[in-house]
């Protein structure tokens, strides 16, 4: 059984809360109009035990919203979330509490995700004390050993977050997530705010810790080369839908969806230099308020057919475990 299974997850945000906000003048008449951002539109995937699934896509594709929804920071509009076989979709905060110990999150911005008024050691102790994982006598020692494990010196334990660099703060964020020894970690762009040499250090650290602590991971990223490096399985998102998913090997070796292909062609690379000569894709990601009819990618797609304007494509299995949602496949 998969550790996490998500089926048909839908998340949307109503921009016009309240009746008055919905009223709008159109051609001299007052009309009622709703503006809803459709962030996630029917996403299904599984995270297997001990594996890393990466969701990759450009800004606004709904990858971070998906992450926040499955750990129930935001309530889903519809769809189901199973954790270890248990349906947690409608759990109350109190019912979620034991799961908070099992699911942890690493955030993108190491400058915003640590409390500036807490010492590092307190940041690490708090979750352990809250979840009763350590007695007050041993908690400090545990926190210090954790700090050591992520590559910080124990004498730095009584400092405040502002005394650390971005990479060091991200190490603290990772240590905090590991403090409760979770089974499942959601990492939302954990390295995108870091310089490349620091990014490499953090990626190596994450991979070592994964082997040591044996957690499963949902990794959210926009950088394909980082995803290639860290994941076992990959899902490519576009406008709130997963357009292609499968094992990393399959998706990277034979990408089938035109968006995935374009994404690969757009990545600048130091060795090959193919980006300049590749075709890439024209246009930009449409607004998530008025979703296009049919396939969400059709207006940018180089190989669109009439049917793409009309019907949303169904997911098809092109090889074992490799799914693509495209009419052309």
């Amino acid at each position, binding site marked *: 059984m998969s550790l996490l299974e998500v089926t048909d997850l839908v998340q949307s945000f109503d921009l016009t809360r309240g009746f008055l906000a919905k009223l709008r003048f159109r051609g001299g008449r007052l009309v009622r109009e709703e503006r809803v951002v459709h962030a996630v539109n029917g996403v299904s995937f599984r995270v297997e035990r001990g594996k890393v699934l990466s969701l990759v896509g*450009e*800004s606004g594709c709904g990858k971070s919203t998906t992450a926040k929804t499955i750990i129930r920071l935001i309530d889903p509009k519809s769809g189901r979330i199973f954790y270890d076989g248990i349906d947690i979709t409608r759990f109350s905060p109190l019912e979620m509490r034991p799961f908070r110990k099992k699911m942890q999150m690493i955030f993108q911005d190491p400058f915003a995700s640590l409390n500036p008024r807490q010492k590092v050691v307190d940041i690490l102790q708090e979750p352990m004390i809250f979840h009763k994982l350590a007695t007050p006598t041993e908690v400090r020692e545990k926190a210090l050993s954790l700090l050591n494990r992520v590559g910080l010196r124990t004498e730095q334990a009584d400092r405040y977050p502002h005394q650390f*660099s971005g*990479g*060091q703060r991200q190490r603290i964020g990772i240590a905090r997530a590991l403090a409760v020894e979770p089974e499942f970690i959601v990492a939302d762009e954990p390295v995108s705010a870091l*310089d*490349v*040499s*620091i*990014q*490499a*250090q953090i*990626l*190596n650290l994450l*991979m070592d810790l994964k082997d040591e602590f044996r957690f499963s991971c949902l990794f959210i990223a*926009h*950088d*394909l*080369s*980082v995803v*290639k*490096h860290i994941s076992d399985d990959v899902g490519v998102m576009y406008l709130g839908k997963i357009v292609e998913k499968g094992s990393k090997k399959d998706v*990277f070796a034979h990408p089938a969806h035109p968006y995935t292909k*374009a*994404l*690969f*062609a*757009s*990545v*600048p*690379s*130091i*060795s*090959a*230099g193919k*980006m*300049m000569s*590749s075709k*890439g*894709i*024209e246009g*930009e*990601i449409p607004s998530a308020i008025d979703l296009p009819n049919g396939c969400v990618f059709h207006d940018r797609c180089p190989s669109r057919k009439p049917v793409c304007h009309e019907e949303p494509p169904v997911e098809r299995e092109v090889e074992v475990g490799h799914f693509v949602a495209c009419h052309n496949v």
Partner: protein
Amino acid sequence: MLLEVRNLKTFFHTFRGTVRAVDDVSFTIAKGEILGIVGESGCGKSVTGFSIMGLIEEPGKVAGGEILFDGRRLLDLSDNQMNEIRGKEISMIFQDPMTSLNPVYTIGEQIEEMLTLHSSLSPRERRKRCVELLRSVGIPNPEGRLNDYPHHFSGGMRQRVIIAIALAAEPKLIVADEPTTALDVTIQAQILKLMKALVRERNCSMMLITHDLAVVSEMADRIIVMYCGQIVEEGRARDVIENPSHPYTQGLIGSIPKLNEDKSRLETIHGIVPNMFELPEGCNFSPRCRFCREICFGVKPDFRLANTEGHLIRCHSACGVSEGGNEV
């Protein structure tokens, strides 16, 4: 040479001490050349760009050196004389397309401002030229969009508008400071292709400042790698990328996960960038260097030739490997 920078020093004087943000930097840009400047945050690459534009503000100060642009010494010019050059002969593209356009003017007005200041066109000709410029940067329906405000445009489209403004007065040199860092990868590819095509077509020169080695390797003719305010390696793009000779450049390239390679671990540069207030006495990179020897801690290294002509590194042990360097 279109631009020649000699021993440029830009220091910031603060209460905590002096930050030598740019320390003895020399380079040249030829006509029609794209020069890439790479380095991590805080290495002085942007300050170098700002120094050339004369945009250094208190507490910063250009403390020494010379900047020769088309035969003129930029550092000796008055503010008024600099205003003649900024925008007309050297223009700049900034990183954040969301903040570098003025939100209360239409984009037509903002492009036209450049033409009013730096050309003798009549209002009608200016209008026509604005449309041409917008078309050349790939904005659909340019006539219709002249009266739109910046918030009507997406990030990628705004960056196109900014490029149109930068090109309006037909500058000889464009300084682009992280022009695509805020953009998504498919949009980045569009903008980079557009910039390269426009630069080549108009035969102007470009100084491309970025943290992304992959971007410069796709764009630049020559590359300069900076670390802690100094140039550590310089050479033709292919030479630097295929044959990185300074240990820092080697580390940077090793740190990038590659799409076409399978490796379980990335090479890393251990440690972090030193505090700019307390730079090491010898080579700035010595505390993080794998090949560091005794001399590196005491003496600042000079430039020396790496393998090929025009490929220079600032390191005591050429290529790090020979001369009995110890791996630490």
